[in-house]
């Protein structure tokens, strides 16, 4: 009969898997990430109860683990290293949410369109996708990258972060700035 591993045994196993991952062993890395995900989820739940937010924090933690995997020292326990990353990313997400909620409020009418064509002048001011493409070229590279990934290609935050090498936080900030910049570029066209 097999018994559940003790926290020490589990930590030793994760440490060995991470050490193998640092050497480029993809199977060990995949196994490690799958095994640590419930552990990260449990840590993140201490900071947040919303399911969607929890998954975002878990994914952000996994992405950060990937980015900083060279900092893990195989002679030291693995769990404190991982827990520090999960805690940091949870706090970052909570701060971000607090910042956004201070400055932004949902507006129901923002997506409303009107049957009277004349009422949709703002939208019609942008005449073609080509025109939007030209305006996008005027944005800084990182902002353009964030906007294209999140809004045009409709990638998730995690996908966009993995593809672009930007953190989830940076992507959100850059996408927000890009929209703001685009708005000011569109502004001169509106009557």
């Amino acid at each position: 009969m097999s018994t559940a591993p003790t926290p020490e045994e589990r930590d030793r196993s994760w440490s060995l898997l991470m050490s193998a991952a640092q050497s480029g062993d993809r199977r060990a890395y995949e196994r490690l990430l799958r095994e640590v995900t419930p552990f990260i989820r449990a840590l993140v739940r201490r900071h947040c109860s919303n399911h969607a937010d929890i998954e975002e924090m878990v994914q952000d933690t996994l992405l950060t683990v990937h980015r900083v995997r060279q900092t893990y020292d195989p002679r030291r326990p693995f769990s404190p290293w991982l827990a520090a990353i999960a805690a940091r990313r949870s706090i970052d997400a909570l701060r971000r949410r607090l910042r956004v909620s201070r400055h932004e409020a949902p507006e129901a009418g923002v997506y409303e369109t009107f049957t009277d064509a004349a009422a949709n002048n703002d939208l019609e001011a942008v005449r073609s996708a080509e025109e939007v493409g030209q305006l996008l070229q005027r944005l800084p590279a990182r902002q353009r990258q964030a906007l294209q990934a999140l809004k045009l290609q409709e990638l998730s935050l995690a996908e966009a972060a993995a593809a672009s090498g930007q953190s989830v936080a940076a992507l959100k900030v850059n996408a927000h700035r890009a929209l703001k910049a685009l708005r000011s570029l569109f502004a001169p066209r509106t009557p």
Partner: protein
Amino acid sequence: MDTDRLIETLSSGLQPVRPLRAPMIRALLWLAAVGALSTALILRFADLAVFWQRVSVPRTAIECIGAALTAVTAVIGAFEMSVPGRSARWGWLPMPPFLLWLAASGAGCLANGLSLYGADGFIGESGSCFVFIAAVSVPLSLGLFWMLRRARPIAPAPVATLGTLGAAASAAFILQFFHPFDVTVIDLTLHLAAVALVMLIGGLARRPLLAAA
């Protein structure tokens, strides 16, 4: 993307990485490099006779030791805190030597009767001290950040603060070899202003400079 797909994406694109050396070793490497470079410059340009005469006064010797220990502990703290999972207490390590440095410098001002004027007037040579600390701190900070950014710190603010404090304190310690007069209030204020300026710049540019994760 769900978490399972993210794991597949990350593991399928995995590249081998070389684990970083222990933070303490990396900190000592930086300190050794700066120590070797500054020793060469001091031996070439400083008036060591004046320096030995100044540090024969215990207060000045304590001031020098305080600055040197602040530099060493702040740099060690920065490297330790650049890696996830290290104790936040590393961040407080430079505090005792920093207070010692401040107290010894303050005692110097008191010994000078809190005079606002040095031998060369109100600002006098103190302006050169400001420029020296700021100018020497910049290349030291850049070298330090270049080493620290390999860790891609997840919390860059304390790393940048400690790193720039370490670089500025190193510059202030090196300055002691080219500082042939006692500290005045203006002198101390400008020394601290230079340290604060370097820390402010490092703090503002921390994310790009440290490639924060």
